[in-house]
């Protein structure tokens, strides 16, 4: 009984996680500028990965395995926050040209 309950909640969490990842990617298409796109990718992927990690925790073979899974999430968060900031700063310092696809002529 408990086993099937855990199994069902794991399935729900995994699907939820994947859906959030999908929505985050949708953000790349629906949002029009770099900074807004970063909002979609950082926040939604953080939550998506969080759900997937949560779903995998009951499967962890040992305490160390569970901790390792959590460390992956923490490392992804730190990388996500840092790279988001670096890209945002780069865009701020050198703004995108209005027609990004157009070739510039000097």
């Amino acid at each position, binding site marked *: 009984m408990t086993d099937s309950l855990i199994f069902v909640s794991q399935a729900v969490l995994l699907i939820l996680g994947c859906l959030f990842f999908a929505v985050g990617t949708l953000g790349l298409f629906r949002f029009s500028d770099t900074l807004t796109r970063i909002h979609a990718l950082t*926040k939604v992927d953080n939550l998506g990965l969080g759900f997937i990690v949560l779903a995998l925790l009951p499967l962890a073979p040992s305490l160390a395995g569970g901790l390792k899974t959590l460390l992956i999430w923490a490392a992804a968060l730190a990388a*996500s926050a840092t790279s988001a900031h670096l890209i945002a700063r780069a865009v701020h310092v050198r703004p995108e040209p209005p027609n990004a696809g157009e070739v510039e002529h000097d």
Partner: protein
Amino acid sequence: MPPAPASPLITFLFRSTVLFVVWWALTLGELSGLGFGAVVSVLVAWLSVRLFPPSGFPLRPGGLLLFFGYFLSRSVVAGVDVARRLLSPALPVQPGEITLTLNVPEGSPRWLLANTLSLMPGTLSVLLEGDQLTLHCLDTRDPVERDVRATERRVAGVFGLAVDDCQEATR
């Protein structure tokens, strides 16, 4: 007055322990690797104390726990918020920038705050210059500054600091 830095010995012991626990997790508790891991943890901790001496901001376990709770709940809010906007046909966003004066001191507190804000609902750290933080907001109609101040209080709690948040935003 800044608080006195933690003693290097305590910082060294703390970092060694944290590194060793990380090693233990990464090797899935493999017994044959523990001895090597212990040596590496101690060496890396020693090097880290040489390169990054203890700051004047020791961590508070209680504040850290409160921060984690706050961070997790706000992460859910942030993800759901962006997902809701993205899935709405009207795409209700009004991006803009806001510059705030931070009340937390230079160093780890400010660094932690700027990075945390990038993962919090509707904010993205763009530029940190001195105590001026420029944020990109997904929707400037939201009470961005109120949320930032709430996060700031939690970050200050991690280091056992008190902040007076009566600073006004300059747009």
